């Protein structure tokens, strides 16, 4: 088995790395690049904790090979804030206490960002179905949905 050289863009930066053919993008982000914001909750695409955006598509990074990132544009939770200015979603998650343990939070933020990019004015039902790929075991989702609603409201006004 030999390493595959990959050149990609992560949160706007050009990044080059070597990876093995069976390494997932999640493995690469966490173990090779130190970007541990994406979490492995299941490794099988069932929990959404590893959500990232690849070329404007929301995906589970555990279901993407590191080798597939060649030439792509990847967004992770580490790229959501601008300097010390939090993204509106991040701010609203804090204000609404939309996190308890916080392990699912990076995945929810990325999924919510993708949701609002495609549907800036979602109904509660659209939010719930749009975020159905992200499991949260602490909150019962109530405060997460409210945070996304509030963020959508603020972002529309901006």
């Amino acid at each position: 088995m030999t390493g595959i050289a990959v050149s990609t863009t992560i949160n706007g930066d050009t990044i080059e790395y070597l990876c093995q053919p069976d390494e997932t993008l999640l493995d690469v982000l966490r173990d090779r690049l130190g970007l541990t914001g994406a979490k492995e909750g299941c490794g099988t695409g069932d929990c959404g904790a590893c959500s990232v955006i690849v070329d404007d598509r929301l995906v589970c990074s555990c279901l993407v090979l590191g080798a597939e990132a060649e030439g792509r544009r990847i967004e992770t939770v580490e790229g959501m804030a601008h300097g010390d200015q939090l993204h509106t979603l991040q701010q609203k998650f804090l204000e609404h206490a939309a996190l308890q343990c916080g392990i699912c939070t990076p995945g929810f933020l990325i999924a919510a960002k993708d949701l609002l990019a495609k549907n800036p004015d979602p109904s509660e039902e659209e939010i719930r179905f749009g975020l159905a790929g992200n499991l949260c075991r602490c909150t019962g989702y109530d405060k997460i949905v409210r945070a996304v609603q509030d963020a959508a409201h603020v972002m529309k006004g901006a």
Partner: protein
Amino acid sequence: MRYIRPLSIEDAVGQLAGSAGMAAILAGGSDLLVRMKGGFVEPDLIIDIKSIAGLGEIRETAEGFSIGAAVPCAVLGENAALKKAWPGVVEAAKLIGSKQVQGRCTIVGNLCNASPAADSVPALVAAGARAVVAGPSGKRTIPVEAVPTAPGRTSLAKGEIIEAILLDSQAPHSGDAYLRFIPRTEMDIAVVSAGVNLTIDAAGVITAARVALGAAAPTVLLVAEAAEALIGRKLDEAALERLAKVCAGACRPIDDKRGTIEFRRKVAGVLARRAATTAYARAGGK
């Protein structure tokens, strides 16, 4: 283990045919990577087909639509023409996994994974879809229902790749629909499912119909008797009753962690009824 990214279907077929050990096709990866993670497969060669020209596109042809093998299901939902012509097929494709999985999974992958519970397959079968198979000896086109032969098995020979799914233009006064049953509202594998495609005449009498059931047998079931129960009738209560009964009777399900034989039989009938009602309305029937 090797990972390659061929640029032509011929190259992919050649690599696949010539591979010594186990070779796997990678499009969306939502089944392959899960199997690799679980240690169920350890391919010697991964052939990523996403760089092959045309495989990532939905083309409108004279006959209808050609959906490339690397088109993610999310893209099906974004194609207005396809959605208009085959809403049932698109609904089915959009039910696979989460938004995250939608961004990756493909209907060809769903078909080749050969799970009896695959969501898009009953809808494709009801729609009369065909698969374009590229192989070492050229190309052939086969009905979708001829692809899976048993759970996890397909009729594809060594070196063969499905490069596209063909859907004819929908006939006038026709409609299709797909419904599945899952315990939650999202994220589950179908416990049982039904796809219905039908055409009506001016009087609302059904002139053609195809009914397919998923997770009801080792492979997708195209239930001819269910179509017969509809053809020549309006979709009245008697026809629906007959359809439900025939579908329940046609099932050969199993008891497993997702459902019981009893449950699958009953709900197959219920879903066929409901899907037929939607398809009929889409066809313009009242």
